[in-house]
C-alpha cells in the first residue's frame, strides 16, 4: 500500500471535520494521519490527510471529498514536490548521567528541550516522518515515558499555491 498526501481547503464551519472523517469511515478508507488548522483566510481551514491505499482508493477519496459542499479545493501532493512536517513531543527519562548525552543527540537532530524535571526531559522536534522516527528510536535508548505526535502538514514546494480559483 502506498501512502498519499492530500491537501484540502475547507470552509471553517462547525462539523466539517466530522463530514470529512465520516466519509473515510463509511467508504472504508484509512486515514494514516490528519492535521487541521486555519489559513490566512480565517473562513478557510486546511486539512492535510495522509491516506494509505492504492490508486483506485486515492481517486475515490478525492472525488468523494470533492462532493462535500464544504470542500473548496483539493490537491494531491507528491513526495518530491512538497515539504511535509510533523511535530513530536517526547518525554524521555533523564538521569544526571544520561542528561548530557540526550542533549547532544537532541542537538544533532536540531530538536529543542522544552521542559525539564529531576527525572525527565521533554523534547520537541519537527521534521519528516522518517526523521521523527529516527529521533524517536534514539530516544528509546534512554526510556521514553510518553509521546505526543501530530499528523503531518504540508505545502507545495516552489512558488505554486493552492489557490481558490
Amino acid at each position, binding site marked *: 500500500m502506498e501512502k498519499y498526501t492530500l491537501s484540502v481547503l475547507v470552509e471553517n464551519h462547525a462539523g466539517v471535520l466530522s463530514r470529512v472523517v*465520516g466519509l473515510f469511515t463509511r467508504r472504508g478508507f484509512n486515514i494514516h494521519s490528519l492535521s487541521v488548522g486555519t489559513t490566512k483566510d480565517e473562513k478557510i481551514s486546511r486539512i492535510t490527510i495522509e491516506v494509505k491505499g492504492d490508486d483506485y482508493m486515492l481517486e475515490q477519496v478525492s472525488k468523494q471529498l470533492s462532493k462535500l459542499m464544504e470542500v473548496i479545493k483539493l490537491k494531491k501532493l507528491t513526495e518530491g514536490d512538497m515539504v511535509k512536517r510533523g511535530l513530536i513531543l517526547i518525554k524521555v527519562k533523564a538521569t544526571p548521567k544520561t542528561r548530557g548525552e540526550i542533549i547532544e543527540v537532541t542537538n544533532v537532530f536540531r530538536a529543542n528541550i522544552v521542559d525539564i524535571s529531576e527525572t525527565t526531559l521533554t523534547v520537541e522536534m519537527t521534521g519528516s516522518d522518517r526523521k521523527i522516527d529516527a529521533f524517536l528510536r534514539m530516544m528509546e535508548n534512554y526510556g521514553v515515558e510518553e509521546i505526543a505526535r501530530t499528523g503531518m502538514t504540508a505545502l507545495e514546494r516552489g512558488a505554486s499555491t493552492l489557490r481558490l480559483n
Partner: protein
Amino acid sequence: MTGADLAVKALEENGVKVIFGYPGASNAPLIDSLSRSSIDYILTRNEQGAAHMASGYGRVLHTAGVCTATSGPGATNLITAIATAYMDSIPMVAITGQVKRALIGKDAFQEVDITGATLPFTKHSYLVKDVTAIVRVINEAFHIATTGRHGPVLIDVPIDVFQSEYNGDGDEEINLRGYKLPGRANETQLKKAADALKKSKRPVILAGGGICCSGAEKEVNELVNRTGIPVISTMMGLGVIPSSDERFYGMIGSHGVRHANSILNRSDLVIAMGTRLGDRSVANAKGLEDADKLVHIDIDPAEIGKNLQPYIPVVGDIKEITLRFIQVIGGYKVDDAWKEEANELRRSDIYTPSGENTGTVDPRYFLRRLSEITKSQIYLTTEVGQNQIWCANNYNVKKPDRFITSGGFGTMGYGLPAAIGASRAQDSIPVVAVMGDGSFQMDLPELGTMVQYHIPVKMVLFKNDRLGMVHELQYTAYKSNYQMVDITGGNPDFEMLAKAYGIRSGSVSENSYVDAAIEDMFADKESYLLVVNVSPYEPTGDSLNDKRLTERR
C-alpha cells in the same frame, strides 16, 4: 417576523405548495406559521410516510418534495425515507425541529443529533444556529437538492431559532463556493466514445435513472431512433424507452431478465448512461472491465470508476452529452445482424402467461392486463419484493417518471406513501400502488392519510400470505427451510380493513376475472383496494431465480 415566518416565506418563494409532515413541540412554530401561508400541509401517520410522500410528490413534479418532523423520534423516523431518496438520487428537503440551542448536547427531551445521524445519506445537511441564516439555508437546500446529481437535504432548526425575531434583511443569497457542478462534457472524451461506437458491431445502451433526473428521455430516444442501438435498462432506467418498444430488451441484473443480461455480456460496447452500475445490476463487473467496452456517462464524477473502471468515461449532464453525441457520431447505424441476434435472444426467453385459471392469479398476467387496460396512462408505484420485480419485468413502463419504486435502497413501505405523494402532486392521472401483503403492512396506517385528505390511490395487493421474495430465496438457497416468512396467521381480512377506512374494495382469484376486477377498480376516481390472490409458490421469474421454472412449484 420570526424565524418560522421567514422559513415559510422562503419555502413559498422556492415554489413549495404542500408539506408532508408530523407535528411536535420543536417544529410547532413552523406549523403555526404554515397556517398563515399559501402552503398546504398533509398530516401523515408516521414521519417515514411523510418523507416517502415527499419523494413520490417530487418524482412526479420533478421538484424537491418537502417534509417536516419534530426533534428526536420524529427526526429519526424520517431516516429510512431519507436514505431511500439518497440512494435513488431523489430531490427532497426535510425540515426537522431541534431542541433549543442552549440544550443541544445535553441529552434534552426528544433531542437527537439528526444532522450527524443522516450525514452518510444526505447530499448535504444544515443545523441552523442563527436566525439570520435561515432564508439562505432554505434557498441553498433547494438549489443543492435539485441540481447536479439530485438528492435529499436536511435542515435542522432549533425551536428558539424558529421563534427568534428578525427583520429578515440578512444574507439570502446562495453562497456555495464548494459546490462543484459539472461543466460541459470533455469534447475529447465524447469523440473517443463516438469513435468507439463507429467501430462497434454490437453496441448496447444501458439506460439508468440519471436519464430521468436529467430529463433526457427525448434525446436518448432520438439517439436510438437514429442509430437503432438496442436498449437495456436498470430498474431506475425503466421507461426511458417504453418497455413495449421493440428496441427495448428488458431490465438487467439479478432480478432482470436473462436476455437483457445476455445482450449486455455479448455486446462489444456498452454505453451506460446515468447508472451506478450497482452490484444488483451488473454481476459480471470484472468481465465488463476486462473487455474494454464500457462507455460510462454520468453527472457524478465519483461514480466513474467506483464500481467499474470504464474504458471511456464522460462526465456531465446526460441531456447535453446525448445531444452532442448525436452530432459527433454522424450517420452511424447499428448492424442488422446484431439486432437480429438480440431479437433471437429475446424470442427464446420471453415468458407468455397462459392466462388459464389455476385457482390463483398469475401476477405477471395481471400486470400485462393492467398495462393494456390502462394503456399505461397511470403512475405506478411499487413496494419492494416480488411485487416490484413482477412490475419491472411485466408492466409496460412508458415513461421513467411514471414508474415510482425504491431501487437502490429496496425499502419496503415505500410504495403506498409514495403513491399518496404522487396522487397529491396531480389529479389528472390515476395512481396505482402495487404491493405485497408484507410491504403493505409496513406503512399501512397511511391509509388514514389517504382517506382524510381525499387523495385517491388504486391499491393492488398481491396477497400470498408470505414474504414472497425471501420465501423464494429460502426455496432456492436454503433447501426450502421456510423461516420467518409466513404471515398467514396475522393477516387481517384486507377487504374488511378497507371497509373500516371507508375504502371500496374487491378481490380476484382467477385469471379470467382479472379484466373485470381491473375495470371495477377504475369505475370511479376514489381510492380502491383490489386484493389479488397469488400462490405463495409463484415464481418471481427473474434471472436470479430463473431455473427455467415457469411451471409452478
